């Protein structure tokens, strides 16, 4: 085993363990913090794959914004941080079935893929992955259309959120 593989196995185990803790811990803030650990593990996995940009964006977006938002939402909506009710609802078997089916399907697909045993290609010197990504996202031949459609979707979500929060009786959202 190479050093990379050992590091990967440790990171993967930590990420999975943290992921299990997210759904099993009773304290909601702890669950959110375990989620942060999980997301951080994913960021480290990206970094191990030399996808620096994705790794850092993962930290900025998921830990810096989304996880903080989760923590805020939990703290502002709950009086008691401990979850008292049962941790499963009656659809648990459906969820388990889906999880097993997804895992089995992916396992089956990856069995026939020969990329598992290959070593990753080394970047040629002077290769700038971030520049390549930026060109791909903005060139008409690349992904400019999906990129813009995603932006429109986000703007639509923003407008929707403002509409929900808008109080038509007073004419504005201020009290």
């Amino acid at each position, binding site marked *: 085993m190479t050093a990379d593989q050992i590091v990967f196995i440790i990171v993967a185990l930590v990420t999975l363990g943290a992921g299990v803790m997210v759904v099993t811990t009773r304290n909601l803030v702890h669950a959110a913090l375990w989620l942060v650990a999980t997301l951080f593990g994913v960021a480290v996995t990206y970094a191990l794959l030399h996808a620096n940009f994705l790794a850092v*964006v993962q930290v900025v977006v998921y830990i810096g914004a989304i996880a903080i938002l989760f923590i805020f939402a939990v703290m502002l909506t709950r009086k008691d941080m401990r979850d008292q009710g049962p941790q499963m609802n009656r659809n648990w078997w459906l969820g388990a079935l889906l999880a097993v089916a997804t895992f089995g399907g992916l396992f089956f697909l990856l069995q026939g893929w020969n990329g598992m045993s290959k070593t990753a290609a080394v970047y040629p010197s002077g290769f700038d992955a971030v520049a390549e990504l930026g060109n791909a996202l903005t060139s008409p031949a690349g992904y400019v259309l999906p990129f813009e459609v995603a932006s429109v979707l986000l703007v639509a979500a923003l407008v929707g959120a403002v509409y929900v929060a808008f109080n038509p009786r007073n004419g504005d959202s201020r009290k």
Partner: protein
Amino acid sequence: MSFWNDPLKVAADWLMGIFTGWGMPELLAQILIGFLGVFILIALLMVVDILLVWVERKVVARFQDRIGPNRLGPFGLIQPFADIIKLLIKEDITPAGADKVVYNIAPMLSMMSVLILWAVVPLAPTMLGVDLNIGVLYIIAAGAIGTLSIIMGGWSSNNKFALIGAFRQVAVMVSFEIPMLATLLIPTILAGSMGTAAIVEGQSIWYVLLSPLGALIFLVAAIAELGRSPFDMAEGESELVSGYNIEYSGMKFGMFYAGELLHAFTFGGFLAIMFFGGYRFFGLEKVSPFLAIAVLLFKAFIGYWIIMWVKYTLMRIRIDHMLGFNWKFLTPLAFALIIVTGLMNALLADFRTPETMWIYVLGMFLSNLLLGWGALEIARSYSRRERARVEAPKPVVETAHH
């Protein structure tokens, strides 16, 4: 290749020779040297941090027309060491009902979020932790971990004041992250790279001349990100006692405090790196890397001094004003600035030759000035309307008075 030209490489080669001489495999020796480098950098930063306590206390004293620490040693230089001994031997209290693990992790994360910033600080042309091609985003990501540490500390203390302080501080940090990231994109546009080393290398003309408005917005956003006055909502001594770190005592409080000071110094450094040429100073950096480090530290201290100057001069702003200022003024302005900078940079691209450089610089400078003036005019007319609305006589109240 002598020690004076490239000290890091010479030292690393020397250590490598020793370690492999002991029969250590090359890979292990490399890892060990890497760890040693990180250890030495952090140790030096902590020593600087101790001195920062003294600097901060001396400077605030001058602003408040006092002398400051002057009893222990020459100019009170031993005072910070006495402070640290005090912090270390203080009783370590964990409040009842605190979430112990989270409570203890928070100060470490706070310090860590500052120390990891130094991985991308180019100290000299040959001295840089890692030349990340996404250095600018990395700075924001480190800030995200700082935000997390504050909310962890505030929540786990089991104290209402701490929680309110943490909420306010996180609201400010999450909001001001956006203009900060936007202004960090301006050196990125000008240098054509997100890497800090490339940004410094690109500054044969300091970017503050090309984008004075960008430097100003970055400074404002950095002060808010640091949670320093006039944005020190988290502390708010008059209403929150001390904010998110109220329950911390001894060295755990010390970690927050030292982290804050080092953070301010670090952002002084980033102001220098992004807009004031980093380690460059009229070719001085080419003489010796040691001179380059001295130049960078000098500029970082000037940035730190400006941050302190603002802190001890201005009073605290109300939280709704602060967030309104960010979302309604600073963020739109920063985005407009990105658009203007990108456009002007593309339009004036032909003038980037040595002979016509002055046209390029003047064009960039004037476009910034124009945008800043326009934004101020809009803000002024808005505040005039708002003042008229607030000051307008309210009939019901008026008749009740008479």
